């Protein structure tokens, strides 16, 4: 437990020192999406009786929390491992690797929630409608945990910074556009639909959208996200034991 607190304290210090740059850089892309696709292009669009802005807010929340949580862990941890070597300070200390992983993933997930809540506040102020509930926030936090743990895994597996850029280009960026953020996956051809539904961001977009629009939450969303969370954490811990 002390190990987790130490890691969280370190993350809190960095967050405090960089709060404005973190806030600004995390909000630029989602606000652009909201403005361009929501209030701009989407003003005249209606998705099955729902205003387009209300349709995309949950999707943009899912992608923003994904980006913020993933980036909060992946880039700093890969730098700590490959360049600064600050990771060694943790590896030689008597904290367990489980504490280290838990601290990093939790800190990344909290960063994701911070960005998500800011985004929701902006969307509400600008007139978007979204039904908030405890379950909605819980599902958003689960999404943050999934992508913070993916960031942890990727940071320990890559061999150089360009590898991280490639991962972002080939995995994270396609998910932003494919996983039901801007359109319903049901509108895509059947084989592509299967692939999209299997990606880890899709259950978050769809689950959050269902809750935001007052619809019933399908078990598929949290179940698939939990499955991804377990896989990423177990794989990440295995990678921790092997990292040198």
């Amino acid at each position, binding site marked *: 437990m002390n190990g987790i607190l130490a890691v969280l304290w370190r993350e809190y210090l960095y967050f405090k020192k960089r709060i404005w740059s973190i806030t600004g850089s995390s909000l630029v892309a989602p606000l652009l999406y909201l403005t361009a696709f929501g209030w701009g292009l989407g003003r005249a669009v209606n998705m099955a009786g729902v205003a387009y802005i209300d349709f995309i807010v949950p999707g943009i929340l899912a992608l923003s929390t994904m980006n913020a949580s993933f980036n909060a862990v992946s880039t700093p941890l890969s730098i700590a491992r490959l360049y600064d070597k600050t990771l060694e300070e943790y590896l*030689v200390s008597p904290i367990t690797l489980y504490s280290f992983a838990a601290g990093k993933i939790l800190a990344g997930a909290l960063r994701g929630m911070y960005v998500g809540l800011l985004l929701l506040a902006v969307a509400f102020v600008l007139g978007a409608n979204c039904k908030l509930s405890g379950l909605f926030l819980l599902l958003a936090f689960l999404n943050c945990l999934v992508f913070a743990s993916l960031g942890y895994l990727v940071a320990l597996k890559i061999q150089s910074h360009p590898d991280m850029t490639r991962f972002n280009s080939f995995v994270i960026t396609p998910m932003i556009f494919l996983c039901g953020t801007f359109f319903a996956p049901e509108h895509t051809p059947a084989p592509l639909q299967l692939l999209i539904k299997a990606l880890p961001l899709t259950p978050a977009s769809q689950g959050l959208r269902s809750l935001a629009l007052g619809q019933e939450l399908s078990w598929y969303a949290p179940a698939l996200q939990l499955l991804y969370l377990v896989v990423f954490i177990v794989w990440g811990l295995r990678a921790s034991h092997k990292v040198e």
Partner: protein
Amino acid sequence: MIILDRVTKLHGDKVAVDHLSLHIKPGEFFGLLGPNGAGKTTTLRMITALTPPSVGQITINGHPVSRNNTVFKGQIGLVPQHVNLEPELTVEENLRLHGMLYNMKRDEINRRLAELLEFTELTAERHALANTLSGGMKRKVLIARALMHNPSLLLLDEPTVGLDVFSRRRVWDLIKSLNTRGITILLTTHYLEEAEHLCSRIGLLKKGRLIMTGSVEQLRNMVGPVVVEVFARDRTRLYFFRDQAGALDFASGLTEEFTIRQTSLEDVFVKMTGERVENH
């Protein structure tokens, strides 16, 4: 006590450390000496469980070294070769974080922090960001950090590399005073004068193999305490003798330029390894 029992480390086909056996007693100041690539850093990385040995076993105070063994980790302090301070945290925050990682109570952290900042003469830099410090100061912070949790064993990997002569001397003084307080020290260096100045016992590593161990005096005596350095045909040759008389007798027949002097640690190294240790 540190015990390395026939420890070998392979990087692919390359042997980085080759059947290294070593006993370092409590309170000892042991220096591992060797040129770049001799296996010094790899040895320290194995002792700190940063990398596992391919073959062999390491124990520290009876505890087997492994990544998951948190018991032995609390007993060692590491000063790495690479400055791995959190760059955007202050000196105080770096030390405090270390204390938290070693499960120290807040009062204990505060007390050690004040003691170590004074000991390393960093009190004025307490609130400075680590990445704004000079090279010498960063080294001192690394030493202070490694000492935060009161380790019984301090591992220093090339602690003065890249420092100017004044900073190097200051770091030497710090390290020496730690040993006089009873801390066991294992130092790796390729600076021969550093090993000569600080260490009570030295091990010479060449291509991962420990080729000899002993005090500086013992190592000199093993090859001969007096050396005749002869410069001829663009090359310096060394001839070792048991005493001054033997050296003089040999030199009297020389026609080339020569010097008679006491054998240095570098001479020992050249004799034993066939390599001249480069200082950077």
